[in-house]
């Protein structure tokens, strides 16, 4: 019997060894993996009890942590939440954190590389790590102006940027929401608020910035890229006379805008065609050039590329291996070509800045709690989209729509403006996407402006693009 007891003891020891092995695996070997698991909210819980850096616009906080008596020691508070909802995002245990609150988390919590030495000092002095503040390139006044230009009940985005640096001065979208509602501590309340926000506006997705995330048919704004491909081929210039038939069937069935000015001229100069945004000549151009130059140009301008500004920008889509018919439709911004507002703003920035696209950027600098500047943004080149000569020619062509063509309502007396409008139509739906993208002054570009309204009726859309560009430029240049 004693032998059996000893054997039982050995079995028990083995069970305990298994336990110790399992504990060692969980707490030592797999600890790192567990800590990084997406379901793990522990890090977040710790963060919520630490002072978090502010997000600043013009030196004033638009997001800051205030001491709280609630579940955690700090409560995130947003000033003008709707205005900045898609830039700051929200910081929530229940709903996750989004936008800058998410991508700048290391800086805001004091965990970034730049704050390493402060962390070491704090480790020995026993002080809590304090997060750094993040100052944005945004101009508060301009942000307010563009936000107010988007009427409620529409889906629109406006971006204003500096072509020479890539700095973004304003980026606003509607419908927006109150980020404070999602940052409440109570998970029950936060869940209810999230549900309420989504129920009130089914087209709103609170965790996505429409200007960076929504992919839309770019319509005629895409013709800027056609011009790059065309002029680079050497077969076209501003004065080239092009066939401008009302209707074509080859390479695809297409017509110019019914009753438009295009219909008056069966043959017209490229300058006229750009100003009036005629369709058929671009379809014929695409047939003439073939798809390769177009693929090439689209790539240089950033289509299909992942970009972080530092918010993540959804890559725009330029379809590959198209048939001539499909390419013809893409040449007027149709078929499967899809672009974000940011992408079309980059197109304007590239033309404005002598063919060089500067990397768009939202963060001006990161400032430590002791006001030491930890990092300062320096302008970075994104790509050389085209040559200075081509860019200059296209700038000249883009003056046309504002002077005499589709963007006349954007004209500001005494200001040299280059812009291109766009209207993307959908089969079976009367609503369109209304676009305008351009820059001013055309001879020395200071700002690039992109406005887009999704799924809006044509007259409203066109009354919200060119006229709003005018208002923005008037405000920027004090005219």
């Amino acid at each position, binding site marked *: 019997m*004693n032998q059996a*007891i000893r054997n*039982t003891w050995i079995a028990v020891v083995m069970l305990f060894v298994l336990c110790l092995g399992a504990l060692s695996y969980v707490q030592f070997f797999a600890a790192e993996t567990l800590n990084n698991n997406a379901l793990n909210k*522990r890090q977040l819980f710790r963060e919520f009890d630490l002072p978090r850096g502010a997000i600043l616009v013009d030196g004033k906080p638009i997001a800051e942590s205030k001491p709280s008596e609630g579940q955690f020691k700090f409560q995130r508070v947003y000033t003008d939440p709707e205005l900045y909802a898609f830039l700051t995002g929200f910081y929530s245990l229940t709903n996750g954190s989004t936008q800058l609150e998410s991508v700048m988390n290391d800086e805001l919590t004091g965990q970034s590389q730049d704050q390493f030495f402060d962390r070491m000092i704090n480790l020995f002095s026993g002080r809590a790590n304090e997060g750094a503040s993040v100052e944005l390139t945004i101009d508060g006044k301009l942000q307010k102006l563009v936000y107010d230009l988007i009427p409620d009940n529409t889906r629109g985005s406006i971006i204003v940027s500096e072509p020479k640096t890539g700095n973004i001065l304003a980026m606003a979208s509607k419908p927006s929401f109150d980020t404070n509602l999602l940052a409440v501590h109570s998970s029950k309340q936060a869940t209810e608020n999230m549900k309420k926000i989504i129920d009130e506006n089914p087209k709103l997705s609170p965790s996505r910035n429409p200007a960076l995330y929504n992919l839309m048919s770019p319509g005629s704004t895409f013709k800027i890229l056609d011009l790059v491909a065309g002029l680079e081929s050497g077969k076209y210039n501003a004065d080239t006379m092009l066939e401008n038939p009302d209707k074509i069937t080859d390479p695809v069935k297409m017509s110019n805008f019914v009753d438009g000015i295009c219909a008056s001229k069966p043959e017209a100069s490229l300058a006229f065609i750009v100003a009036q945004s005629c369709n058929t000549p671009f379809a014929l151009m695409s047939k003439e050039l073939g798809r390769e130059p177009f693929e090439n140009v689209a790539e240089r301008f950033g289509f299909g590329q992942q970009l972080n500004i530092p918010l993540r920008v959804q890559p725009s889509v330029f379809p590959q291996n198209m048939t001539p018919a499909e390419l013809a439709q893409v040449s007027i911004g149709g078929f499967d070509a899809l672009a974000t507002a940011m992408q079309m703003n980059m197109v304007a920035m590239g033309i404005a800045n002598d063919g060089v696209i500067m990397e768009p950027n939202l963060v001006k600098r990161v400032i430590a709690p002791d006001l030491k500047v930890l990092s300062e943004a320096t302008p970075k080149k994104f790509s050389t989209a085209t040559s200075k000569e081509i860019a200059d020619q296209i700038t000249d062509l883009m003056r046309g729509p504002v002077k005499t063509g589709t963007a006349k309502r954007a004209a500001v007396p005494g200001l040299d403006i280059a812009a291109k409008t766009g209207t993307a139509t959908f089969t079976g739906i009367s609503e369109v996407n209304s676009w305008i993208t351009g820059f001013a002054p055309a001879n020395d570009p200071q700002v690039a402006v992109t406005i887009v309204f999704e799924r809006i009726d044509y007259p409203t859309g066109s009354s919200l693009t060119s006229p709003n560009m005018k208002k923005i430029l008037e405000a920027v240049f004090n005219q």
Partner: protein
Amino acid sequence: MSELETAPVSRRNMELLLLLLALAVSMGAYYLVGINSDQGLSQEFITQGLFLAVLSLVFHVILRIWAKYADPVILPVTVALNGIGLAMIHRIDLAKISRDSDQSSRQILWTGVAMVIAMVVLWAIRDHRILRRFTYTALAASIVLLLLPMIPGLGVPINGARIWVRIGDSLSFQPGELAKITLAIFFAGYLSSNRELILLAGKRIGPLQLPRLRDLGPMVVAWLVSIGVLVIQRDLGSSILFFGLFMVMIYVATARVSWIVIGMLMLVGGGVFAYLTMGHVTRRINGWLNAFDPDIYYAQGGSRQIVEGLFGMGDGGLLGTGLGNGSPYLVPLANSDMIIAALGEEIGLIGVSAIVMLYLILVSRGMRAALGSRDAFGKLLATGLSFTVGLQCFVIIGGVTRLIPLTGLATPFMAAGGSSLLSNWIIVALLLLISHNARRPMQASLSATAEVATEAPRRPKNLKEAKK
């Protein structure tokens, strides 16, 4: 057995020394919880600490009087485990996450009740062999205890399992916890009496000496009881525990590996049957295999508990966050089923390994008492009781670390819950008694009771040989 004879030395002074050490560890844990929380040291620290200290010392004195030769390690180890458990429960109370944030007062009260009852057991029984007279009474008691929760009005289902009895408004009790003791007494009594009978050889397959078919009866009964507990009461943990207890005891009684093989086959069969037919078992197994699948994590009754526990332990790492500095309250049931995860988070792998070692010492000392015991009943009972403690540890620690599916067994002496504390303290009392009887001088044992060692049933001793 001669090599196991130890000199009849009482070693109570050693016990006192270890006991003071155990109390110092418990109080230390309590103190750390206090200074690391915003509350600071509370009145509870003094009262609860004193309460535990006084009770332990009284227990020690009782042992000096009635079980002088008892193992000197068992009591200190138990007090240390109980004390650390109390500190952890108090720590989770401080987080004020649950509605019921005064679990530690209740736990200290139950500790008191459990220790007093354990002392009464010591005083009343004195010699464990008396229990052998109650073999069939113990069986009847087991059946009653297991059936109690099924009585309408008395039994209440909690978290899907029907293992609770509610008396009055606030007092709920898990009679199944006591059933493991009565069942162990029954098995020990039955097997020590019928050992020779069961040893009769049946067919032989390869190296395995199979038992006779008719002797499989008790095994089948135990298996049915376990399955019954699983099906009717939906309690997977207790089911495994009862069956494991029986298997080990029949193995120790017969020293036949064939019993283990047959038992394992029945266990696997029962397990597959349960997995295929019973929703809550299927859920448990799926939650175990695919714990990190977000769908299962967020599902009702999904893997959130175990995954949060793993996150906590991973967060604690090698050294732990320190008592009071982690967030173990994020894990559901952190103070009962998941207390090992809570400890793993705050005292780290090193601390929780020390706790596992304490359990191993406790179980080993129990088995040591079994080895030294002079009668088959005592050997069987001590092995069975020690093994239940060990198996509980394995099932719960294995479950929390995702080694095996998680089942709702209580971590002995640590998890919040009166029934488990009470039954485990009674087990400790019985182990102390058996070790006392094993180590005391022979003469004393002769004078204590008339019958010396367990006598085998009066059957021809050569029956086994005759069969061969």
